[in-house]
């Protein structure tokens, strides 16, 4: 009985190819939109999650200045190397304490030059930020102590200055310093905010202070908290220690900031997910509209085929058989729309993912849900027209036209 209904439905759909296509267009668009939203949203979430890892797990960033509302700080005295020594000594939960100070500068190699961010720091910087050398090596203790003219560069800088050449051992110029490239970092790609993380040059802190900055300042301290330790707890310990070191009295506010990067990225992830859900919901509304389209066409179809229904009823079709025929037809239509939508969505997602630079994450769950949902839309919105068809009076129906 179901098989017959299926065959009948297929025949009926083939009879009106153009109309069937227009009918399912709403479902196609709805399903495609839902899948694209969820797939791209999923990709964005995965990207953010990867960045949490690449940022260095449990990274805290300590910067001088008072917080004046979101993103705003007023100036305050910078830190010193002594501060980092004290942090490393007094807070055992820290696995890396990296004093950093940075400046935008042009680096030159041969005829090539490139404006990038030069950071002076220690080996702990690589540890705190999860950087690994792709080739060459990181700083030695003696290089750090002596403030040697050695540097580790990111993939973007290598690309701009060396093309595909091996940069290890080459000398690049930072203002007056000729600096030997000793290491090349693994690529990390874009950050959550869309900045290129690979666009950087690291030199020993002491070299930076002496030859570039000309002072002993440390602008930002980046620390990494041991796994399994509460970052909020450590954050409090750091604030306590720094207040002491900066001689702040009880009623004075902090003149520095401790930012928990993990918290920030978590917030970003949550935002991405909320956005995805929101867009998905908007897309789901178009599925609903698609369903109404199907109901509309099915109603038209029932009216058009009143005589056919009359014939079927007269020769002995049961009410439920006619109901099933129209229900199956609506369900076949809408699930076919769902299938077309899925295929379109997957193709579009792959394309969009590469354009938007987010990873393509195939989500089998949403594909199955979208398909089942599209079939369900057909059943729900097809029910009323089907019921109408099944309850026709055969005599009236036969006289129709």
């Amino acid at each position: 009985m179901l098989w017959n209904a299926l065959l009948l439905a297929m025949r009926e759909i083939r009879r009106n190819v153009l109309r069937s296509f227009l009918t399912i267009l709403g479902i196609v668009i709805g399903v495609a939109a839902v899948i694209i939203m969820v797939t791209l949203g999923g990709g964005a979430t995965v990207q953010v999650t990867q960045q949490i890892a690449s940022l260095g797990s449990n990274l805290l960033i300590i910067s001088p200045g008072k917080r004046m509302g979101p993103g705003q700080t007023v100036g305050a005295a910078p830190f010193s190397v002594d501060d980092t020594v004290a942090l490393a000594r007094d807070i055992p939960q820290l696995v890396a304490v990296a004093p950093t100070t940075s400046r935008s500068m042009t680096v030159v190699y041969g005829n090539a030059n490139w404006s990038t961010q030069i950071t002076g720091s220690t080996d702990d910087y690589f540890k705190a930020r999860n950087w690994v050398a792709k080739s060459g090596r990181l700083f030695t203790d003696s290089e750090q102590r002596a403030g040697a003219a050695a540097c580790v560069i990111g993939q973007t800088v290598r690309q701009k200055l060396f093309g595909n050449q091996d940069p290890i051992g080459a000398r690049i110029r930072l203002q007056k310093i000729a600096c030997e490239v000793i290491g090349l970092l693994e690529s990390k790609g874009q950050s959550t905010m869309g900045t290129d993380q690979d666009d950087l040059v690291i030199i020993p802190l002491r070299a930076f202070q002496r030859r570039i900055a000309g002072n002993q300042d440390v602008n930002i301290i980046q620390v990494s908290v041991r796994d399994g330790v509460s970052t909020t707890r450590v954050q409090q310990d750091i604030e306590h220690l720094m207040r002491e070191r900066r001689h702040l009295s009880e009623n004075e506010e902090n003149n520095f900031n401790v930012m928990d990067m993990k918290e920030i990225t978590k917030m970003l992830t949550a935002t991405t997910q909320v956005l995805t859900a929101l867009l998905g919901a908007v897309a789901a509304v178009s599925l609903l509209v698609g369903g109404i389209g199907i109901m509309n066409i099915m109603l038209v179809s029932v009216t058009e085929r009143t005589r056919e229904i009359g014939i079927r009823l007269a020769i002995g079709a049961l009410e439920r058989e006619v109901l099933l025929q129209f229900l199956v037809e609506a369900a076949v239509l809408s699930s076919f729309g769902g299938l077309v939508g899925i295929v379109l969505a997957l193709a579009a997602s792959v394309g969009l993912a590469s354009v938007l630079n987010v990873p393509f994450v195939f989500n089998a769950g949403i594909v199955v849900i979208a398909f089942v949902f599209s079939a369900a839309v057909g059943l729900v919105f097809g029910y009323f027209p089907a019921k109408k068809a099944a309850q026709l009076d055969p005599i009236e129906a036969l006289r129709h036209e």
Partner: protein
Amino acid sequence: MDTTSVPVIELRQVTKTFGRGTAAMQALRGVDLVIQSGEFVAVMGPSGSGKSTCMNILGCLDTPTTGSYLFQGVTVGSLSRDQRAILRRHYLGFIFQGYNLLNRTTALENVELPLIYRGDPVEVRHQRAQEALAAVGLSGWEHHTPGELSGGQQQRVAIARAIVTQPAVLLADEPTGNLDTARSQEIMDILTRLNFDQGITIVMVTHEPDMAAYARRTVHFRDGLVVPEHEIQHEGGA
């Protein structure tokens, strides 16, 4: 005639009223009719006399307002819509004035339709449908759609569809109403043969005395009532 057997059709004081109150219209006003198995009955009468209304009741498409209809001894009025549908699919065949075939559907598929609802397997369906088409002289036309067939051929497909289930009773409401004389005679030949060879009971509404002449008995309707035999003598020549 064997009077001890149950008549295939028996109407007892059947009335049918359409509408309510002042708009009420009594189409049948107490029809008594008995048809034995194997009869070929023609139904005649002026337009609006209630012939089609009566045929719809005989065909279990409609139920009497009052009175009772016994089909092979079963009171149809007490059956549900689905039970009447099952009665139709097993015991009744319909032929309409307007053929009522499914458009854009081949003759074979049209004839198979009642068997689909009976749940017969595909091979049986094909076999029976082909036999039914052969019986009405349409072998070789199986794959033509109604649009590709003449009126006479379409009506023959409709007859094939009506007899494919080997029904006890064939109900035909003006089966030749849309056909010329030659085509009409072909249809009547087929019906006569079905009645004679297969013993199918036939009730046929017609306006044409020539067609009614093929039947072995004629029932006259007037104003929602069957005209008694003795009154017909005066109209005999009409």
